[in-house]
Structure formats: structure tokens, C-alpha cells
């Protein structure tokens, strides 16, 4: 665990036309950084999740499996990744 978390340089504003290298999402209630331009499918891969077993909600809208690869996340997006667990 780093003692000091450096903000990514690309978030600085001196080159406003350049997109940031990483963006921040809220995934399952936790702040997470992902590369800019990442798709939801890439987000699942990053967490080692099988897209057939996980349902993705992006800003409270369900994104169906065929659309995961083509849906890019943006800074500040809220993502929920859910699956089936034991229950009665």
C-alpha cells in the first residue's frame, strides 16, 4: 500500500485537450481507477469476472451482455457488478 497516492499527471489541466490516462469510477460502492476509454467488458476482465455470470448496471441502467464490449465508462460513472449468491 503506497503511503502517498499520487494523482495521475494527465488529470492536470495544462493540456486540457488531452484525455486523462485514468478515470475514477464507483464500482460496487468503492472508488476504482481504470484506464481512460475502458469498456465495461474490460472492467469485468480486470476483476477476473466471467461476463456470463455477472450482471452490469451502469448508472442504474442494466447493460446487457452483447453491449458490454461497446460501452465505455466515463469518469464518475457508478457501476454495480452483481451475481447470484446463496439465498432462500
Amino acid at each position, binding site marked *: 500500500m503506497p503511503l502517498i497516492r499520487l494523482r495521475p499527471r494527465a488529470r492536470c489541466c495544462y493540456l486540457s485537450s488531452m484525455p486523462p490516462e485514468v478515470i475514477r469510477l464507483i464500482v*460496487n460502492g468503492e472508488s476504482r481507477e481504470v484506464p481512460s476509454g475502458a469498456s465495461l467488458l474490460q472492467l469485468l476482465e480486470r*476483476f477476473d469476472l*466471467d461476463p456470463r*455470470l*455477472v*450482471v452490469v448496471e451502469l448508472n442504474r441502467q442494466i447493460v446487457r451482455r452483447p453491449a458490454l464490449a461497446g460501452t465505455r465508462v466515463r469518469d464518475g460513472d457508478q457501476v454495480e457488478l452483481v*451475481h447470484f449468491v*446463496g*439465498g*432462500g
Partner: protein
Amino acid sequence: MSAAWQDTALAIGGRTFRSRLIVGTGKYRDHATMVGAHAASGAEVVTVAVRRVDLDRTKEEGLLYHLDPKRYFLLANTAGCYTADDAVRYARLAREAGFNEFIKLEVIGDQQTLLPEVEELLKATRTLVADGFQVLAYTNEDLVTALKLQDAGAAAVMPLASPIGSGLGLLNPFAIRTIKSRLTVPVIVDAGVGTASDACVTMEQGVDGILMNTAIAEARDPVAMAHAMRLAVEAGRAAYVAGRMPRREVAVPSSPAKGMLG
């Protein structure tokens, strides 16, 4: 099952099932015990819950690795939801994760008793029915609520025997019989069964099935209890269909009174 007794199928929301026992997947000590209990129960429908993936997990296997969707019909629940909006959100996620449009709708109104929030339950039922769901609504043993759920389009109404996870058994057989006698949709008793005799007595009230989780999962030997529950549900059902003898306050001899020695 012997040739002397052949039950009709249980029909819910356009599907038919041979087993009248629906079992849960929660609280098992390990996946192998759950798989063994499911097989011993003879159930075709198993319930599951929808929750966030643990992002920091160490490559643990998900529930679906242990549940064959070809063998079991997955009935997702909305357990833990306290409002209609939350329940509808969970139901839609479940439909996307699952393989069917069935939902076990729970909208809880009280944390200590886990009794249903009836207004929100009815609201969620109407929304989900309009959205194409087959709603199996967990409710209390109140006839008027059960009738309202049926009117709202529920595919089945699921009154409790006693509070969820309590194992107190069937507390109000009269109320359950009343609901069963007045509804046309299937009545599945959901929650409260503690042991095999509870399941048998519940089925003897004439209900269409029972849903249980804790009674099996928390038994000392869940596989053996699942077997017992299967027998109890079948026995109770057969006894109901057979029609019990009348209760009498006096003894009536089983052997002839005539022909005794003088």
C-alpha cells in the same frame, strides 16, 4: 413413488413441476453439502439471491458453478429489499442474470420479524407483472393481502408458516387453509418450517407446495433432512388428497362389536 399414488403436477406461471418442494441455497456450510441436499430433496426449483460481487475475492467460485441450470429451475429472490423500487431493481438484475422471468418477491417491512411491507409488496407486484414477470409473492398469512396479490397478477402467493428462519412451524393452519380455499393461483407456504412434521402438516392443509431453506441448511445433517423433507412433503400431499377421517371426541372400536363370546 408407488403406482398406487400419482400426484398432479404443480403448475405456476405456465410451467409445471413434479416436485412440490422448493429449496434454498443459503446458509450451507459448503457447496458439496448444498449439492447433496438438493439432490436428496428431489426439488426442481431452487432459490438464489442477488448481491454485489466481492471485488477483492481470491478467485472464489460463484454459486452458478455448483448449480446446474439444466437440472434446476432458478428462482431468484429480492431478499433484503425494503421498498418496491429496490425490489423491482433487484428483480430486473435477477432476470438479466438468470434464465427466466420468475421472481420470488420479498419486500420486508420490519428487520426483527422480516414480516412483509404489504403496501410496497403490492406496488412491486403490479410493476413487475406489467413488466412481464411471473411474481411469486412472499406474504403474511392474511387472506385479504393474499387476495390483493392475486388480483395484482401474482403467479403464486406465498404465505409464511412462521417468520423466516425461525423454524417455529405452522403457527396458523386455519389462516393457511382459508387462503388456499379462496385463491385460484397456487399457494406455496414460504418460511418457518423447522422439521419434517411441520412440512407434512403444512401440506395436509391442501397448499400446493412449500419453500424452505434454513430447515435443511441448518440441520445437523442437511442431506438427511432434505430427504426427510421430500418424504414429508409427499406424505402430507398424499394425505391431503386422500382426505383424512373425521375427528371424533369419542372412541369407536375398530373390531366388530358383534360376535363376541357369550
